[in-house]
């Protein structure tokens, strides 16, 4: 790896700005302590390179088509500049202007943020993956092209940079090499937030140029708003699927389970990440078992969008975020529920509870609560008969960044685990100091080109290290170790990295949600809700 890559190098045309070799990667604990045990990482093919801009690093996340002419390049650069200006205008970006300005103007360039970043560390400290690298690119462009006196003073004030298509294309890709976990911001002695800057760069590209990762845009937010869910499920299909899940759950637990739909005046509107229904049906199923047995007056909504808690706009588009949040609120108002409870999905938690909060003025501000809180209350209330010995295997907890570091929901899930999982052990570090799973900000659902391998090898590496360390005393074939991740996106990422490294076979590490552990401990239900099979 070339360790001397300067900020201004991003503008210089070259085959590839940086490369991470296998030997650069952060070491892993046993049984992965020898690099030869790491699965190979396929390079981009010539065909893939011909399809899209690829010159940043070893992968492609967005896949921006190559401009066909110099005129097209110039036009894209002009649009970028226009978007850059709008990012700093109150009328176009009032919602993030103050935090953005503070972060742009006060970085001391001390690199304290670097060591907090799991991507930087896992890549073997690649200079392009420093949290400050992309921020510095944007800062220099802002100082040179937006700030008054920019061209005259920028080189002296903040260092020079050239704006061309190479800069723009690489910066777009680089905004998708950050999980937006904001761990770096936590450590900054001045308060600069490089996660915010990555978020704002993504917004610039989508809100001005229509450029975003397809999985979170066309196949994500846009699809959700068009048909009701990013999974493609229409209201009819989601009800059919839940009927199947009810049947399956009834058989598994030994009593009839019936999901409640569109109950007017219910106390709770429960909103799942609809991906759970498709990928991990036992999760929404377990939720409904618990709520039914605890006598909670809840409902799901069959209105389009309202049965899918995802809100991918959180990562790249304020307007799409607002559209989805308003749909969730409208469904709650239509049913006249007392509150919305958000299922096991970290970004859905943050989008609807925190980020959308201040645009929900007047009667739109329907109360929103975390399912961690409701589940804690149910488990502690004694409404469920629980036998912790049914969970007598090592359990560790992954803290979803959105729910924990960015919302302060730390203890409810731990109170539950301390009650129902006698072999619960923490990862190091944990709570608000946790590391991202590596799938945050949409990465968990992104696998274009060889981007999945970048996730498995780099962004998910630190979490894999943490998980292996947590189960270090019981890592062997045939063991039973449960990685509890109360977040759908995190589960998607954990599934992928555990599968990639064969951690279920080699260490017996299975992943799943929190509700599955609760139902597994319920004495009303047949034993063995958690099946120790890879899924």
């Amino acid at each position, binding site marked *: 790896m070339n360790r001397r890559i300067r900020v201004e190098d991003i503008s210089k045309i070259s085959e590839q700005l940086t490369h991470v070799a296998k030997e650069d990667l952060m070491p892993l604990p046993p049984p992965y302590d020898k690099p030869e045990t790491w699965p190979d990482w396929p390079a981009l093919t010539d065909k893939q390179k011909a399809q899209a801009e690829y010159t940043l690093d070893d992968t492609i996340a967005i896949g921006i088509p190559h401009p066909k002419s110099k005129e097209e390049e110039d036009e894209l650069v002009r649009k970028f500049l226009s978007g850059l200006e709008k990012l700093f205008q109150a009328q176009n970006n009032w919602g993030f202007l103050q935090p953005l300005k503070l972060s742009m103007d006060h970085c001391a360039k001390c690199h304290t943020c670097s060591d907090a970043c799991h991507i930087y560390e896992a890549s073997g400290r690649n200079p392009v993956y420093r949290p400050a690298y992309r921020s510095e690119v944007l800062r220099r462009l802002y100082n040179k092209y937006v700030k008054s006196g920019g061209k005259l003073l920028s080189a002296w004030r903040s*260092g020079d940079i050239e704006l061309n298509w190479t800069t723009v294309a690489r910066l777009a890709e680089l905004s998708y090499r950050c999980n937006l976990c904001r761990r770096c911001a936590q450590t900054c002695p001045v*308060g600069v937030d490089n996660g915010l800057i990555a978020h704002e760069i993504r917004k610039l590209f989508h809100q*001005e140029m229509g450029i975003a990762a397809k999985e979170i845009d066309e196949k994500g937010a846009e699809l959700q708003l068009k048909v009701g869910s990013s999974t493609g499920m229409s209201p009819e299909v989601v009800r059919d699927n839940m009927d199947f899940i009810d049947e399956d759950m009834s058989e598994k637990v030994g009593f009839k389970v019936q999901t409640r739909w569109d109950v007017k005046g219910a106390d709770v509107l429960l909103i799942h990440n609809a991906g759970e229904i498709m990928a991990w049906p036992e999760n929404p199923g377990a939720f409904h078992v618990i709520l039914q047995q605890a006598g909670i007056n809840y409902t799901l909504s069959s209105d389009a969008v309202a049965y899918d808690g995802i809100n991918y706009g959180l990562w790249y588009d304020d307007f799409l975020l607002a559209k989805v949040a*308003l749909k969730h609120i409208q469904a709650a108002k239509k049913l006249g529920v007392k509150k919305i409870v958000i299922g096991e999905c970290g970004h859905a938690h943050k989008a609807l509870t925190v980020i959308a909060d*201040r645009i929900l003025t007047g009667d739109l501000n329907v109360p929103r609560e975390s399912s961690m809180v409701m589940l804690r209350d149910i488990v502690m209330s004694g409404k469920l008969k629980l036998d912790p010995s049914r969970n007598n295997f090592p359990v560790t907890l992954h803290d979803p960044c959105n729910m924990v570091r960015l919302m302060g929901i730390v203890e409810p899930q731990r109170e539950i685990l301390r009650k129902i999982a006698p072999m619960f052990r923490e990862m190091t570090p944990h709570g608000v100091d946790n590391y991202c799973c590596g799938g945050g900000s949409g990465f968990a659902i992104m696998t274009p080109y060889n981007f999945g391998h970048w996730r498995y090898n780099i962004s998910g590496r630190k979490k894999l290290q943490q998980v292996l360390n947590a189960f270090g005393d019981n890592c062997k074939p045939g063991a039973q170790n449960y990685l509890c991740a109360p977040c759908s996106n995190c589960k998607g990422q954990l599934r992928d990295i555990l599968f990639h490294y064969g951690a279920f076979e080699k260490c017996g590490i299975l992943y799943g949600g929190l509700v599955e552990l609760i139902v597994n401990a319920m004495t009303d239900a047949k034993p063995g809700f958690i099946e120790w099979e890879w899924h």
Partner: protein
Amino acid sequence: MLLHLITYASLAVFALAVGYKAYSLWKMPPHLRWELYPVAHDKNASYGGSYLEETDWWNKPRYSSFIGEMKGMIPEMLFIKALFENNRPLWYRSFPFHFGLYILIGFLGLTLFGAVLQLFGATFVGGFTGLIAQVTALVGWVGLIVATFGAAALLHRRLTDEELQDYTQFSHLFNLGFILAALLLSVLAFGVSDRGFVLLRGYVAALISFNTAAPVGSGLVAVAILVGSLLVAYIPLTHMSHFFTKWFMWHKVRWDDAPMTKGCAMEPLVNECLKQPVTWSGVHLKADGKKNWVDIATEEIK
């Protein structure tokens, strides 16, 4: 007289620049929540918890601890706690620099106090005023030595640390160089001509009594005062203004966890923001420069 005018002007530039920057930040539109835990005023700050851990949190009184904020802010302001925990090698350099400057601010406060006493006829020989003079001198020298060491150490790191080199612009070197030069010059000037800071006290007394004809008493001290005055004017014009913008970073962003409630003071401000026309060009937004945020957010996607 020219030196006195320069000092007045420097103080005015400092006050105006800080005031203007603070006002600009203060009057910015409300932003969406972007808090980062732990939030110091929360009762569960010790582990990073929030009021969102409570059942029906919207029906409960909001807890906000001033003492909690102070517990979060004071170690950060005085000891740069985040740096201590996350970048110890830099802290060994940055802490003496910043703490030395704090000591020097205290020294200037004591000097100002002494100057007022001087105008009231104090002789600074024995007794309370004598003690003030001695304490002032002690604080001044400690501050100068500690800050000079810190500034030199920071400049040394900027010049020698490979990782920082690509992020070091001329302005960083100039800023640190300027501060170090001012500190070294002060050490030299006061060490040679005014070890008890008597001339400086006299100069401050002349400033507050508008006696601009009063001589400084030493050419070297006058040069040190001149450079120090220029530095005071310069600092708030640079990114070193983080000495006060840090307050906004923490209180207006990281710890700003206030929820929107019906009828709260923020509500009309947000409603005004939502009425603003949008000019983003993304095709999916169909913004025409006339549609506002509400229009776009409520438009169906087909």
